[in-house]
């Protein structure tokens, strides 16, 4: 018989404890320290680090959104890049062309993308697996083709996107992105724990049984589409503002694959897994870049040696992560926590 020793602080004794998002004191302190560290980053970091962190936070938002569809509900979506493009161009039109305030345009970008996602999801409700992924795959090319032919947004040449007045510098845009990311993560964690999150899990695991117990598959799948689209739209809008310029070339199909990689590596079906995956996939290539620069500087190897080698290293790291952490980085994190929690006991 296996016995797990769990400290009292991990036990939930009443409903109030269940409602707390971060119930344990040490986790609360860690979270505050992390937030403070992020808030203080612009005081010492230059444009490169701030740009990297901004890019990572945008990836976190997109990954969380995609995980609602793929990880939580089990609906494979290949339209992430297209949804981000919809959000990005909506921001360009409303903030750039119509002059709306930044946050208003950001909200509209999220809502329009959510609507687009529901419009795609509605006729494909009965599709599953490969067939659903093909439908979203086609949607990607339709969106990119339409954008590339629309004169109003500059066709293939693209369109410029203004940054918010209070977010012109790298530091201030970092805070804008940080605020939006924090809000959406808070929302995402609550969704995960809510009826919606649990129902999505039921649909993913046994959709017929879920229907049998009264869960409306159609309604909840559409909610998953909507939330996923909203997050993707906001991520796309922030991406557009960050670059200050977008074109169809910024949303290749490879971007969808990258986001799928993030949630696969991070952990399907968890918001924290999406965060881990996005951070991992955003920072590892930069780490490889620095490592290769150091090696090139100190050896006689030509810079071209690392051109494709970087992709190979990156692929190896992904494969190793999937082999040694099959439940993703989130699963690895949970296992590590349990190990130290129960140490020196093995169970």
């Amino acid at each position, binding site marked *: 018989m296996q016995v797990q020793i769990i400290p009292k602080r991990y036990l939930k004794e009443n409903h109030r404890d269940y409602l707390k998002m971060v119930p344990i004191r040490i986790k609360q302190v860690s979270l*505050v320290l992390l*937030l*403070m560290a992020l*808030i*203080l980053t*612009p*005081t*010492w970091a*230059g*444009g*490169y*680090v701030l*740009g*990297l962190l901004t*890019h990572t936070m945008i990836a976190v938002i997109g990954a969380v959104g995609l995980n609602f569809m793929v990880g939580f509900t089990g609906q494979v979506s290949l339209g992430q890049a297209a949804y981000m493009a919809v959000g990005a161009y909506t921001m360009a039109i409303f903030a750039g062309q119509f002059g709306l305030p930044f946050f208003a345009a950001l909200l509209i970008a999220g809502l329009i993308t959510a609507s687009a996602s529901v419009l795609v999801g509605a006729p494909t409700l009965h599709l599953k697996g490969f067939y659903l992924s093909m439908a979203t795959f086609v949607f990607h090319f339709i969106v990119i*083709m339409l954008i*590339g032919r629309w004169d109003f947004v500059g*066709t*293939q*040449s*693209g369109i410029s996107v203004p940054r918010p007045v209070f977010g012109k*510098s*790298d*530091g*201030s845009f*970092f*805070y804008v992105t940080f605020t939006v990311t924090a809000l959406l993560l808070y929302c995402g964690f609550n969704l995960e724990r809510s009826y919606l999150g649990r129902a999505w899990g039921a649909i993913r695991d046994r959709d017929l049984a879920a229907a049998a117990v009264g869960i409306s598959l159609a309604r909840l799948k559409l909610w998953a589409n909507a939330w996923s689209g909203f997050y993707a739209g906001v991520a796309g809008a922030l*991406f557009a503002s*960050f*670059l*200050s*310029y977008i*074109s*169809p*070339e*910024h949303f290749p199909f490879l971007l969808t694959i990258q986001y799928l990689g993030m949630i696969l590596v991070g952990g399907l079906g968890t918001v924290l897994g999406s965060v881990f995956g996005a951070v991992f996939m955003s920072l590892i*290539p*930069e780490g490889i*870049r620095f490592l290769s*620069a150091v090696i090139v500087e100190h050896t006689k190897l*030509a*810079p*071209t040696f*690392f*051109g*494709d080698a*970087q*992709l190979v290293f990156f692929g190896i790291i992904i494969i190793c992560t999937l082999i040694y952490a099959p439940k993703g980085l989130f699963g690895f994190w949970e296992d590590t926590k349990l190990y130290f929690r129960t140490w020196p006991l093995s169970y």
Partner: protein
Amino acid sequence: MKTKSKFLSVLFVAVLVIVCYGKSEAAEPQKEVPGISGDKILIGASLPLSGPAAYAGRGTLESLIMYYDYINKEQGGVNGRQIKFIAEDDGYDPGKAVQAVRKLVTIDKVIAVAPVIGTPCIMAVRGFLNTEKIVAFNGISGDPFIGNWPYLFGLGTPYEIQAAIGVGFIANDLGAKKAGDSIYMVIPDDAFGAPQFKGADLAAKELGIKLTVEKVPRQTDQFAGVAMNIKRSGARYVMAGTPRTGTAALMREVEAQQLDVTFLGPNDVNTEAAIFDLAGKKYAEKYYGVHSISLWEDENDPLIKWARDRFKAAGKMDVLKEKNFFYVWGLIVAKTVVEGLKRAGPDVSREKLADNLRNMENFDLGGGVAPVTYKGQTLLITGTTARVSKGTVVGGVVSLKPITEQRKSPVAIKLQ
């Protein structure tokens, strides 16, 4: 008590944010002379060293490294300082290009980013480079230069103008207009194809020659349908604006359909003898190419000959064999940047380099491209002319030989 502690926590975080916001704004401006240390000048480049555009990045990189090595070892550097060159891989991805350029500017503190390859990449980074006042080089679509970009320099003639020159050549020199023949243009459906179409369309309308255009996905190699469309249209001339592998695939399909057409590459990037290594030689002698920058195999060009001799001496026979336009482009970028640094003098800075480049007038690189003039230009692009070369097969080897002088566009093309 709990409410009070929550309120105090929120207040503390808010104060922290306000304080840090103010500090972060103050932390932005550069105060030193970046890119210059006691004995080194740092020059950066953001190149596609991986991915489908890797041949462009690697070709450019080889020439940049060769030229900077030459300057360091045989010329003693620039004004007594050695050049340290840092290349970053952006994989032709605008998102990666942003990170690569930010690293070069804020971490490595380079004096210039020369070059950034690709329209999508330069469009993503030009705002940042403009704000930081960093000299950058790019070629050769006109789009990135439209607007107020005083630190963005181009080398070579924009694709719009080259495509117009190509249409003019077909219409007048090859007699298509007189014979009532039409042109079929195949371009990638992206920011590379768009300016080509713009210039060709304007010229075709002005010259009264029929132009049919078909846009294809950039990386496609499926051209059977395109070849059928060319056959149906009855066009005698095909302007192939697709990258090397695409043009080769198109030629194979056209050959399979047994069409008697003449091909024209509408700009520097498309005008390559290397296409025939993939496509076979059937259309080699019915191939013309427009280019503003000398061809890598043109040993009559003194600068090209000099560069080829240096690669030969270094034993880089693979570089000599590959007919890659980007070897030339990297060379002329390096030469122009070094000239700008020389003119800026020993107390060079980012701003001084930019000023000296902007004042450049009729700078003769000794070949490679027409003399460079940025002075008085609204858009910092030097090229307004291009020449046409024809494919020839000698001893089973296909090469391109210039058959015209540098000529202007037959129509006025406004880039602003």
